């Protein structure tokens, strides 16, 4: 069973509010990812990290920011939420695996609605 947790599971918030989506894993994985997914649609990589103090932007441009101060923690922050940010946000982690990639474990996701 995957040991990666996201909170909150659901969040409804007003436009202009600052929010932080939490993601924690207890597997000691170096690599962590944030994906954005609209219902029934594809998974868009918005941020990733190779380890502590490493953060990179993914293929989909996002107004969110991330930090990686501890191996187990990879929070995502939106400074000023807008209705266009309404989506599901999925966090994942994996071990390093050379040129290939190890299995990714996903959290249950945070479904964000901005009104």
């Amino acid at each position: 069973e995957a040991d990666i947790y996201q909170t909150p599971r659901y969040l409804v918030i007003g436009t202009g509010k600052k929010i932080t989506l939490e993601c924690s894993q207890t597997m000691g994985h170096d690599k962590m990812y944030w994906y954005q997914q609209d219902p029934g649609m594809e998974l868009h990589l918005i941020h990733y990290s190779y380890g502590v103090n490493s953060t990179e932007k993914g293929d989909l441009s996002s107004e969110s920011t991330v930090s990686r101060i501890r191996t187990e923690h990879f929070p995502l922050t939106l400074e000023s939420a807008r209705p266009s940010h309404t989506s599901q946000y999925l966090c994942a982690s994996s071990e390093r695996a050379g040129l290939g990639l190890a299995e990714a474990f996903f959290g249950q996701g945070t479904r964000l609605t901005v009104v």
Partner: protein
Amino acid sequence: QQPVQSPQAVILREGEDAVINCSSSKALYSVHWYRQKHGEAPVFLMILLKGGEQKGHEKISASFNEKKQQSSLYLTASQLSYSGTYFCGTAGSQGNLIFGKGTKLSVKP
């Protein structure tokens, strides 16, 4: 570089077989396959690391043709529980995990 999946959607009757393809325009070091059921997180099915490798998971198996830069997922004698969206994932240029657009599989009784 996002991998390309085909078909976009498949509708099957229980017991029928299906093949989902995943291809890339760049060299592949590994291919992942995940299944996501409605309202749930994606779940890992298998990873293929070497050209020519084949793996199986229950009645779901996959192959990896490194030279052709493609992988195929085979679902044999499909069950209702196989319904969901199947994603292939590959390593992006920075070693991150990038997914195809997904193939929606519906298995009907």
